[in-house]
């Protein structure tokens, strides 16, 4: 059996021989035998260190509350893919790839915090002062403040504040928690002053803050969040594969299905005749000149 590497790369993450797999210097089998937790292993993977007990607890808590979120874009994607009955990994991959600039934007939040904390350092400002600057700059420019607001949990994400409190309880709050709390304070104050409704912190705002304070870089934190959601999305996909209807359009089901024909609402151009090829050039020229089509361009 050919066991040569498929890819020539220097890597500081791991090596694998016929005798063992070693990650950041530690034999994986030995880590498991010594009863380190999976969360400990994630610290080693991303940070090259064994965490304190409370750091490990914090990560475990954050991942635990983040895994399942019922119907979010990620679960909907997993289910949508599963209805075609591909191999299960396709559903899981789809769910993880829904995490972008809006759904679970962990990296964006982390980069935002790092950028403004760096500015506080460079400009000699306190974290509290810089949090106000952040909020004002974002809201003045009509940009969403990362980590605030959730379209379903309109009274604040039920996971968010408990994460902040857990971080305090475990004594793993640092510069990020202080800064995030200040951002929230000024964000609420600004919205109130502007006569806008309350928008609470979301799980990215609190969970990612905790991940930052326990040493994860923005992308590492994003990886942890988005991939751990993949676990629950695969459960949703599996439920559909094992107990739901393929395709999601059957008229035999007692409930109207996801893509039943009646679920389609069309708001595009009116029905129109397909031009004959003999008319095509003139038709197309006129259509282009009139420009009405631009209304529909995406």
């Amino acid at each position, binding site marked *: 059996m050919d066991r040569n590497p498929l890819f020539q*790369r220097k890597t500081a993450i791991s090596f694998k021989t016929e005798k063992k797999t070693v990650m950041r210097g530690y034999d994986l089998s030995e880590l498991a035998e010594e009863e380190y937790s999976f969360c400990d*292993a994630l610290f080693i993977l991303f940070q090259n260190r064994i965490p304190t007990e409370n750091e490990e607890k914090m990560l475990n808590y954050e991942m635990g509350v983040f895994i*399942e979120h019922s119907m979010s874009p990620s679960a909907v994607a997993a289910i949508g893919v599963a209805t075609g009955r591909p191999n299960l990994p396709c559903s899981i991959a789809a769910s993880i*790839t829904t995490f972008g600039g809006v759904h679970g934007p962990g990296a964006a939040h982390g980069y935002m915090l790092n950028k403004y904390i760096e500015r506080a350092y460079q400009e000699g400002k306190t974290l509290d002062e810089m949090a106000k600057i952040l909020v004002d700059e974002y809201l003045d420019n009509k940009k969403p403040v990362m980590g605030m607001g959730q379209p*379903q949990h309109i009274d604040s994400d039920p*996971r968010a504040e408990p994460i902040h409190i857990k971080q305090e309880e475990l004594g793993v709050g640092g510069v990020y928690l202080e800064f995030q709390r200040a951002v929230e304070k000024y964000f609420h104050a600004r919205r109130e002053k502007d006569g806008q409704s309350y928008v609470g912190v979301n799980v990215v705002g609190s969970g990612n803050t905790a991940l930052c304070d326990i040493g994860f870089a923005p992308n590492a934190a994003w990886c942890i969040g988005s991939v751990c959601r993949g676990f629950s999305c695969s459960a949703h996909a599996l439920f559909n*594969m094992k107990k739901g209807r393929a395709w999601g359009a059957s008229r035999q089901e007692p409930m109207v299905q996801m893509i039943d024909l009646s679920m389609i609402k069309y708001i595009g151009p009116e029905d129109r005749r397909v031009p004959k090829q003999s008319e095509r050039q003139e038709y197309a020229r006129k259509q282009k000149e009139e420009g009405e089509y631009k209304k529909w361009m995406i």
Partner: protein
Amino acid sequence: MDDLSNKKGIGNLDDPRMPFDYSKREYGTVPTDTKRAPFQWVSEVAYKNVHRIVARGYDTTELMEEGYGVPEVLFVDFQARMPLIEEAKMLNYVMILALEDGLSMPAMMSRIVAQSKTFLTQACGASILAFGHAYGAYSSFGNRLEDYLKRGKDEGKTLREIAELLVKENLHDESLGVSCLMLEDPAAKRMIARAEKLGIAGEYVTFMKEIVAAAQKISAEPVDIDMLGATGATMMDLGFSPEATWAILACTRAFAAGAHYIEEIERGNYTRLGQTLTPKEFYDGPEECKVPSLDDRARNAKPAQTYTPDEWKKAFEERKKIFGSGFSIIEEIEDPSKKTGIKKVGH
């Protein structure tokens, strides 16, 4: 709106073999079906409202506040139950071993996607697609175990007899769980030992041991339990279905794929369209030749049609010689869901 009433004379659409009159097809969408319950996202796994997220009946925030962790949530989501402490410990053990595998396929896929300047999540998602029926083949492996165990029960065979049959029929399959891969690495055997120590090992680990013994008896080369066999059997003794095992372990690896994405970017450069060359030494296709004039198309073109089974077979065999044509691959795309359809709305 255009006059759409006269729709005759469009291409072949008036052909009498059409299943209905194409000129009279209705425009417009289908009205809402009021005879059936409206669409909802039906789930046995979880729900949420404004203030709660609930998985299999348990509020997930309360689960964490009570001191449970990631392994427990996975048991709750996939098995709708709270695991024993030993079971949670075993799952934790398995996940550590599944986390990283060096520069193997998931890491490669993540790194290749990273080179195109993508989001990290694209790379992590891509890494999961590496898990198929050869690499990380937990679905194939587990379903085979289940099928043969059932067969053994139906046919009144002993575990040993059915293991021997399984090995005889699948010795060279990539998802057997027995191979030459772990002859010097004790990790797989240690996992089984841990499962036994924790009291987790059950029917599947026992069956796996019989499979290993049967394979060692007839294999021409030294073989032993590999990571697929140890992990798959342990996960199934933990109560996870083959598909749940596949999902959990593919996801577990995706964390490390994220680290590989990060390292690829930190250490290297992005790759542009057209940048990567393929040396001619790699090429073993047809010799280079002049592109014939389009005027000579009829003289050079070779039609694909065959008209008898004999001609078809001959052409098929010829086409198999063309790598990349797909004719050498024979596979059956099955519905992996086993069973579909919910015959009720609600409880």
